[in-house]
């Protein structure tokens, strides 16, 4: 079974803190993604990566950055956390693109910024 593991399930951070959300997948997938999920807004793509050291902006990249130094690991960074970044963050992975690759999600990280 594909496993996507997010290092932290619940975090509480202060405004202005730097926050790292780590994600690891064990299926040698080329693609990795970070989404945030908010009530009524569905899943919104923040960033994705299709290869090591490659990244592409998604729908809402502002206030976030990412790092992919190894194929299995994709980190989401909040340089200076703000209260409007309180959300549930989902990491996901999939094989390289051709029509219809299944996306596998991690369990999610609930971030509260106070």
């Amino acid at each position: 079974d594909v496993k996507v593991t997010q290092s932290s399930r619940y975090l509480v951070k202060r405004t202005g803190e730097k926050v790292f959300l780590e994600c690891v997948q064990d299926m040698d997938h080329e693609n990795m993604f970070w989404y945030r999920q908010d009530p009524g807004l569905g899943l919104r793509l923040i960033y994705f990566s299709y290869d090591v050291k490659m990244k592409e902006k998604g729908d809402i990249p502002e206030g976030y950055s990412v790092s992919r130094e190894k194929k299995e690991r994709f980190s989401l960074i909040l340089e200076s956390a703000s209260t409007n970044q309180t959300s549930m963050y989902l990491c996901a992975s999939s094989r390289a693109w051709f029509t219809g690759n299944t996306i596998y999600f991690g369990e999610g990280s609930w971030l509260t910024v106070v």
Partner: protein
Amino acid sequence: GQQVMQIPQYQHVQEGEDFTTYCNSSTTLSNIQWYKQRPGGHPVFLIQLVKSGEVKKQKRLTFQFGEAKKNSSLHITATQTTDVGTYFCTQTGANNLFFGTGTRLTVIP
């Protein structure tokens, strides 16, 4: 980027009633995938449709892909409390990475 719109956003049904959610796109879709997210959980892949007019079934769930490949539906027959959750549709592939808002299903026992 292209987006897939889902309706309704919320649906409450009595246990045993049927439920349908619809996905609509203004452009032709190369494929459609459906995911289910249980309350407090993460989205889990259900099925993929690729061919025009395709219909697939999983027990009480019936998935359809429109003839023009611009819409899709998920129909649940005789809902059970285990069907509770949010159902998402999406197209996957390069440059098509957007999920819709989903349809949140509540089943009243």
